[in-house]
């Protein structure tokens, strides 16, 4: 009967209730977006780092991976030493650089990765063959678009541009052997991957056997931190960063987003709370006579409270259900805008949907719905019956 009364009370002013539900839905959508934002970027980054199974990354001392143009010399020797460790299963040296192509009157510059194709963790081959041969390279769609080339074409490419001499340190004819998706590149960035030896030779980094980064995969169950400490101790030229540590640094850098998400989420909750509590309070004020009569008839205070709380909860739940759908659509749209954020991998999602996010948002809205009904329900339950009836009669 209480649920029936609560629902009937909401239906009595259907348009008003609908508007309130829509208001709560907007607040719920914003809340979901903020919950997704606060966890999404971090989770997305973690998934990306672990996607190829490498648990450790070694960068030049004092730098983060690809933060600067600094390199690690003696790459082959370091790789050999690392492979002697019983917990290490794969070591992948990576060298970063740039490739330049002349296409008609235009010059195309592309990011280049020198890798060991058999043990790389930077790209996924989509079609064609991997860059196993010394004169082969795999490229992404942006590269093909920028150069007008196709898989199978041979291109004249240069690397190691010296701006003072206006010359390149190396030029080669390379065959586009395959098409790939690069995991860590920003949206719209063209890229090519070729053997590390080839890129070293073209950029003049072969003499010192340089690499920008090592990625290290460990056997399952290995103590990542112990291996990291060993490397840090025995290979002084590098900083070894585990995925957990990288996540910690990401957390530090992205704390701004979490704070923003927290503040905007809290604001949306407060707006939802005020909306529901205002509507239910107005509804109670309109029904003072009815409530006083119910109390006179012997309806208990707790049942009056329950009925009013149900009204607030029903508005919040209806708003939450609509808002969750609206939030997902909004998050997808915002994600498409923010994924073009400069310097961040395109594979990173700012708004990552996880069931936990939806449950968190729903749980918060339920709490807000109940809290929003507390004041009007207390007011209804504590009405002085005789006075309320007298005032109603006079009115």
């Amino acid at each position, binding site marked *: *009967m209480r649920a*029936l*009364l609560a629902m*009937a*009370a909401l*239906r*009595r002013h259907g348009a008003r209730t609908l508007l309130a539900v829509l208001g709560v839905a907007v607040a719920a959508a914003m809340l979901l977006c903020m919950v997704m934002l606060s966890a999404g970027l971090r989770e997305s980054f973690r998934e990306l780092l672990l996607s190829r199974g490498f648990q450790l990354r070694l960068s030049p001392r004092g730098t983060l991976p690809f933060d600067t143009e600094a390199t690690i010399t003696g790459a082959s020797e370091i790789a050999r030493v690392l492979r002697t460790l019983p917990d290490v299963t794969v070591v992948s040296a990576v060298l970063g650089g740039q490739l330049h192509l002349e296409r008609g009157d235009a010059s195309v510059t592309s990011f280049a990765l020198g890798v060991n194709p058999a043990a790389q963790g930077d790209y996924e081959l989509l079609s064609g063959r991997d860059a196993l041969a010394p004169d082969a390279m795999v490229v992404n769609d942006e590269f093909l678009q920028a150069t007008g080339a196709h898989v199978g074409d041979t291109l004249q490419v240069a690397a190691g541009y010296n701006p003072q001499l206006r010359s390149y340190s190396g030029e080669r004819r390379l065959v586009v052997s395959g098409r790939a998706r690069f995991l860590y590149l920003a949206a719209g960035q063209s890229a090519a991957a070729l053997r590390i030896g080839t890129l070293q030779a073209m950029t003049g980094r072969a003499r010192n056997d340089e690499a920008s980064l090592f990625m290290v995969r460990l056997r399952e169950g290995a103590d990542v931190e112990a291996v990291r400490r060993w490397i840090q101790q025995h290979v002084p030229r590098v900083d070894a960063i585990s995925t957990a540590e990288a996540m910690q640094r990401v957390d530090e850098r992205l704390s701004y987003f979490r704070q923003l998400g927290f503040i905007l989420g809290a604001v949306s909750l407060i707006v939802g709370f005020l909306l529901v509590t205002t509507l239910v309070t107005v509804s109670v004020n309109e029904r003072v*006579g*009815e409530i006083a*009569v*119910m*109390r*006179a*008839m*012997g*309806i*208990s*205070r707790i*049942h009056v409270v329950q009925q009013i709380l149900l009204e607030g909860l029903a508005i919040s739940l209806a708003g939450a259900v609509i808002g969750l759908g609206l939030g997902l659509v909004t998050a997808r749209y915002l994600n498409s805008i923010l994924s073009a954020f400069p310097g961040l991998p395109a594979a990173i999602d700012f708004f990552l949907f996880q069931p936990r996010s939806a449950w968190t948002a729903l749980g918060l809205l339920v709490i807000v719905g109940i809290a929003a009904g507390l004041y009007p329900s207390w007011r209804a339950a504590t009405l002085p*019956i*005789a006075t309320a*009836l*007298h005032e*109603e*009669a006079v009115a």
Partner: protein
Amino acid sequence: MTLLLGAHNLRRDYELGRGGEVVHAVRGVSLEVERGDYLAIVGPSGSGKSSLLNLLGAIDTPDEGELTIAGRRIENMSDRELTDFRLRNIGFVFQRFYLLPVLTARENVELPMAEAGVSRADRRARASELLRYVGLERRERHRPTQLSGGEQQRVAIARALANRPALLLADEPTGELDARTGEEIIALFERLNADGTTLIVVTHDEGLASAARRAVHMKDGAIVHQEVSRVRAGNDDTGAVPSQE
């Protein structure tokens, strides 16, 4: 006949605003009502009739005095005890009906029974029986807005009877009705009383007051005069009873 309600020296003061003038709404009223009685409380506006009815109905508590209904002392009960007491012992009929507009006539009648824990089947049967009693068996599924004023008041009376109360209180039950509809309600009250319901009615309506077995006249918060209705007493004289004050 046995005593159903005994009020002794009831007093109720109201303060008009914080620190404002104090209104002595009920001043030392003593009253006894026996089971099966039909009492009308009459008097000019502001004489304290409704305030006294609120006290007798346990929806307000006296500042002084003692009140016993159905053998239970009222003035010291907690809010929870009072609420439960009203649910099971007292029925209310108000001038403005106060039916819940979102419920049908039958659901309105069922409401106090649902609160009292009566099973759905039993309360449905009882609600139908009561609506038949007040002549609204064909209006069970109608909402209050689809009923006339007289019909709404009859639904309100059926609702007041739902939990078989020992005492039925009515505050100006014909106040919002035209003369003819008012007479129907007066007739219904007479029938209720004849069937054993104890009634206390506050009214300006002379017809309603004269239908009662006896009437008490109030002025300035006090009972100034009691009389036995000539019609119900079965003789031509008004058997005036001196005020207890």
